[in-house]
Each structure stands twice: as C-alpha cells, then as structure tokens.
C-alpha cells in the first residue's frame, strides 16, 4: 500500500501563496526556475543512489561540490582557456571526488545506521581541509601559477574568483526562445542525460544490488552481494555526480565564491528532493525534478513576498531556510518513527 505524501502539495500551496504576494511575473519566475533546474538538478540526482542503498540523505555531497571548485581553481591556476578548461575542471573534479567518495564510503561502512550524522560531520571536516588547502596552502606549500588568484598577503586564494574565460560557452548553446521563455536545450540535454544515467544505473544489476543493500542488508549478504562494496560504489557515484553538478552550477553563475559556494548545497538539495515527495528510504528521478521546481519556485518568490507582506525582504530569506531545515527535520522524524513501528511489529 502506498501512503500519500503531502510534501509536494504543501510546497505547491506555499509557492502559490508566496507567488501571489510577490507580484512577480510568471514569465520571470518560469525563466528563473529553468535556470535553477539546470544549476541544481545534478546535485539533487546525486542524492538518489545513496537513498536507494539505504544510507539516507548524503549530506557529504558538499565534498563533491568542493571537488568541483578545486577543479575550477586548478584550471584557472594553469590558465587553460575555453572548452578545454571546462573539460579539465570536470575531469580533475571527478578524479578528486572519486577518491573522496571511496574514502567516505569506506568510513560509512564503519558507522552503519548513523550514516546521515556522519555525512554532516564529514562535510565539516572536508570544508576544513578545503579551507586549509586554499586559504593557507595555495601560495605557500602549493605553488601558485596565476598571481591574479592570490591574496595580497601571498598565501591563499581570493574570496571570489571570476570564471570569465568559461562564461556562456555551453550555457547558451542551442538556446531557444519561445515567447520570452528561454530554453537552453544543450544544458537540458545534459540534465536529461544525467537523469537517464541514474535511472539506467538503477535498472542494471548494480541497481538491484543497491536496492537489496538498502532494503535488507543481511538478506543481501546471504544472497552473495558484497554490501560493503555496494555502499562504497553508491558513495562514489553520488560524490562524482555532485561534483559534476557543482561544475555546471558554477559555470552557470560565472564565478566561484571560493569559501562559500559549496555551503548549503547539501541542505537545499536534500530539501528539494524531499519537497518532491521522496522519503529517506525511497527517492526517484521524478521526485528530484518535481522537487527542484517546487522548492526553487518557493525559493525565488519568498524574499519579494516577504518584502511585500512585511516590508522586509530578509524575512523571506529566513523563512526559506527554515522551510529547508524544517522539511528535513520532519522527514527524518516521521521516517525514523515508521521504521521503529515496523521493527516493533516484527518483534
């Protein structure tokens, strides 16, 4: 029996109310949502496989995001221009996130049952190491090739670096304008390809292994599946996807806030996935896509709605971060309770 999940309805309702009070044009909001679909989809897709493998929401996708930033900085440092730079950033990011994914997966095998809290702390640890490398290491023990990136004190990268050499190279490819709605078909096809890839992975034997490890680890072990390896694979795929997602995200924005761009990417991605109707045990591509549309429509209109209702834009901003944290908290509490009830019935 499927239980009705009220989350999408709730978010739709909230978005409509906030949209009504925001006085924004539908065209503007639509275009913004399209941009957000391109920017955020891959980061949200990255969450699906760990959920399927029974590891819950993977908050350590921010490690993948930081790997992407490292990739961009690496290319800027070597001053590789154009499409080659984009490819280089993606490749070096994938390399880093593959290794990180392996390490995270191996660690998570030692903390089964508390993966989510572990991934949050891993995110903090990763952010610390990342800051150490780029704020302390760059220019001191890591040689700097591009002095434009360097802070004037000679150590560390500037807070914000420009991605001007890579701006609009792939964003505006195959751009179609339908009565004011701008559809960048090339970027859409990337998102679609990623969605398809995740879907295909879940249909292959590997996908069945993920599902088996997620639903009952002991039974999966008995039927000859190496669940530990399966879980490591899930983390590698998740981290690499998150890295690609952040590459697209930053490329689209056109600059890197070196020390803040990755922040909240985990929270907002998780909240978007849950808004689309996913749970901590089950997540699908359609949940991700619906969730991005719903969560980001709300995200776009709340500051203006806050401005119009309470004449205070900052209120809308606080409101949306409350919605993000709150929806994750509620999903967690409901899910854990369900699980306990199920366990109680089994006993």
């Amino acid at each position, binding site marked *: 029996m499927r239980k009705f999940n009220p989350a999408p309805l709730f978010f739709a309702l909230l978005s409509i109310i906030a949209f009504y009070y925001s006085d924004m044009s539908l065209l503007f909001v639509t275009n913004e949502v399209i941009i957000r679909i391109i920017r955020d989809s891959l980061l949200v897709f990255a969450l699906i496989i760990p959920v399927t493998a029974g590891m*819950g929401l993977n908050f350590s996708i921010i490690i993948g995001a930081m790997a992407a930033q490292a990739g961009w900085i690496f290319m800027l440092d070597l001053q590789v221009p154009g499409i080659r730079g984009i490819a280089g950033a993606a490749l070096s990011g994938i390399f880093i996130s593959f290794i990180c994914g392996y390490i995270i997966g191996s*660690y998570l*095998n*030692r*903390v*089964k*049952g*508390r993966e*989510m*809290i*572990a991934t*949050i*702390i*891993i995110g*903090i*640890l990763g*952010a*610390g*190491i990342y*800051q*150490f490398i780029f*704020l*302390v290491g760059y220019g001191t023990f890591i040689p700097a090739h591009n002095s434009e990136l360097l802070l004037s*004190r*000679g*150590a*560390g990268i500037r807070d914000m670096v420009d991605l001007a050499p890579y701006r609009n190279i792939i964003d505006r490819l195959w751009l179609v304008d339908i009565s004011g709605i701008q559809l960048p078909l090339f970027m859409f096809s990337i998102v679609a390809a990623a969605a398809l890839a995740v879907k295909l992975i879940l249909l292959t034997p590997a996908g069945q292994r993920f599902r088996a490890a997620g639903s009952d680890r002991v039974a999966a072990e008995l039927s000859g599946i190496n669940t530990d390896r399966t879980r490591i694979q899930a983390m590698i795929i998740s981290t690499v996807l998150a890295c690609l997602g952040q590459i697209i995200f930053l490329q689209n924005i056109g600059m890197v806030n070196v020390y803040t761009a990755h922040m909240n990417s985990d929270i907002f991605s998780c909240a978007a996935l849950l808004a689309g109707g996913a749970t901590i045990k089950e997540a699908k591509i359609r949940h991700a896509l619906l969730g991005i549309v719903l969560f980001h429509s709300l995200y776009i209109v709340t500051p203006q709605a806050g401005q119009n209702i*309470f004449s*205070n834009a*900052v*209120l809308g901003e*606080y*409101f949306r*971060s*409350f919605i*993000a*944290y*709150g929806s*994750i*908290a509620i999903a*967690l*509490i409901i899910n*854990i*309770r369900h699980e*306990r009830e199920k366990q109680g019935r089994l006993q």
Partner: protein
Amino acid sequence: MIKKYLPPLPQVIIIVFIIILLGLAIKIDIPASSLINDLFIRLILNCVLVISLIPMVNSGAGLNFGLPIGAVAGLLGMVITAQFGGKGLTGFLLSIAVSIPFAAASGTVYGHMLNRVKGREEIAATFTGFSIVSIMCLFWVVAPFTHPQMIWVLGGSGLRNTIGLRGFWEKSLYNLMQFKAGDIIIPAGSLLFIGIIIISLYFFSRTRTGMMMNAAGENESFARINGVNIEKIRKLSVIMSTVLASAGTCIYAQQYGFIELYSAPLMAAFPAISALLLGGSSGKRVFLRHAILGVILYQSLYLLSLPVANILLVPEMAEIIRMIVTSFIILYALAKKSEERGDV
C-alpha cells in the same frame, strides 16, 4: 589488557599537538601568564556548555546535537532581560532565570520528540536544532523589542546581529571577586559559579532520580525491570541538558560581551560535543571530570594555535584547525561507538 589503560587515540594526538604548539609559543616569547589568563577565560566561556551535555549522555539519550535549542532559549532570556533594563550582576542572574522557563518548555517538547526517535537521536536532534535556530531568525526580526541598543538604527525595528553587552552586564561575573596573583588574573567569582553548578550536578547524580537516570543509560532493559520509567527519566535528562545549555549560553555572552543572534548558534553543538569526547569518556557514562579535562584540552589547542597562526600571517588558520579537529574527533567517536555496539 594494557590496551585498556591507554588514552584514546585523539587524546594522544591532541596532547602531542599541544606540546608542539606550546614549544612554538615559548619560542616566540608569549608570556605564560597571558596564556593562563586566556585559558581561564576560554574555560568560563565553554565549560557549562560542555557540562550541559552530560545528563543526556548518562540517561542514554545520546550526545545532544540539539544544543542550539537550549542556546536559543538562553538568547531569548537575555534579550528579554536587556529589554527591561537588567544591569550588572543582577541583570546577568536574571537573564539565566528568565531563560530557564523557555528552556524547560522547549526541552519538554524536544525530549518528547527524542523519545520517539530512539536509536537515531543524533540526526533528528541536529535538524530539530537547525530548524529552531532558523525559525527564531524570523522571531528576532519581528519581535517587538524597542531598546535602542538592541534594535537596528535604521528602520527602528528588528534585533541586531550582535548586541553589545557594555552598559548591561558585560563581564559582570568575570569581574566578581576577581583577584590578581602576580600577572595571573584569577576570576574567583566565575570559578565559584561554575563550581556550584558542577557540585549540584554531582549531588544530583547521588539522588534517587540521578541514580535512576544513570541506570537508564547503562542498561535500559534492566532499569525498566526495576521499575524505572525510561521515557520519563530520559525526558527529564533532556530538560536538564537544555536548561544547562541556556545557562551556558548566558555565561558565554556575559564573558564574551556580546549576544550573538540569528545564525550564530547554528553550529554550537559540534565544538561542545567534540570537547566532551576529547575528555575521553569510556563506555556509556560520562563524568564531570571528562568534561572539564575535555574543555581544557580543546581550548588550549585553540588558544595555542592562535599566535602560531598569526605568525604564519594566516589568522584564519586557528579556526581551520579547530574545524578539522572538531569533526575528526566526532567522526572517530562515531566509528568507535559503532564498533563497540558490534554494528560493523
């Protein structure tokens, strides 16, 4: 068997690290007295926040990742007291008194929630804490506070990000009964105040309720057979932890000289938890000495890394080291705990 008496790995690493930093500090001629003075200050800042974790750990409710809930109650108590013109030491004590009902009320709800997510408290508590902090951000903007030192100058409403306590009760506890021994400033009043909290917690653990609480944490089914109402006792421990966290926040702000609102308490749980774990509690029970040793180790690490970071011309370095150390210790403890429970 020898292995049993060795201190845990993070403790060893941190102590070695502290010794290296201490050597560096001596080499660059930082006077020992100023280091000791700063250590006293950092001890006062953080001690009660770390101690606040103890009741929940001992009752089996786990590490309190929802510490921001108590912190927010403390902030609320302080702004209300400041609004009504609380000043000096009375103002400070009043701010704790005002925050206690808020902490007790939110602790009751929070404890009820934690009982429903037994076994997975950490993650549920983390996000409950995050949610409370973010909804309170809305409150700080719209709440009808009017004191000119607390609200934004422009617009005339909404509380500021940081409220200076000068003119209210900045360092009122720190200055109480403070005396000098040579170059070393001994904040006797603060130490006495924290000492009273510690001693009353110690005596509480000797009462019937306190013993029931420890029993619930040590062996739940055994305690249940002996007639302990586990849910009720766990809820009580959550309330105690939340109230202590709110008092700890008041002490922190008093010493620091600023009330930090909005997203400031968001990450408050992690350093406190890390310090407690560093104290080296083995098994399920945590003793007060673990908390105190943990705070001293954790804070001396931070304290000693500051001057070294400044020499390297990268002042952010101290904070970065703290971030790495904090998360490393928690990750180590999580893995160790799972190993002990035989989950792997």
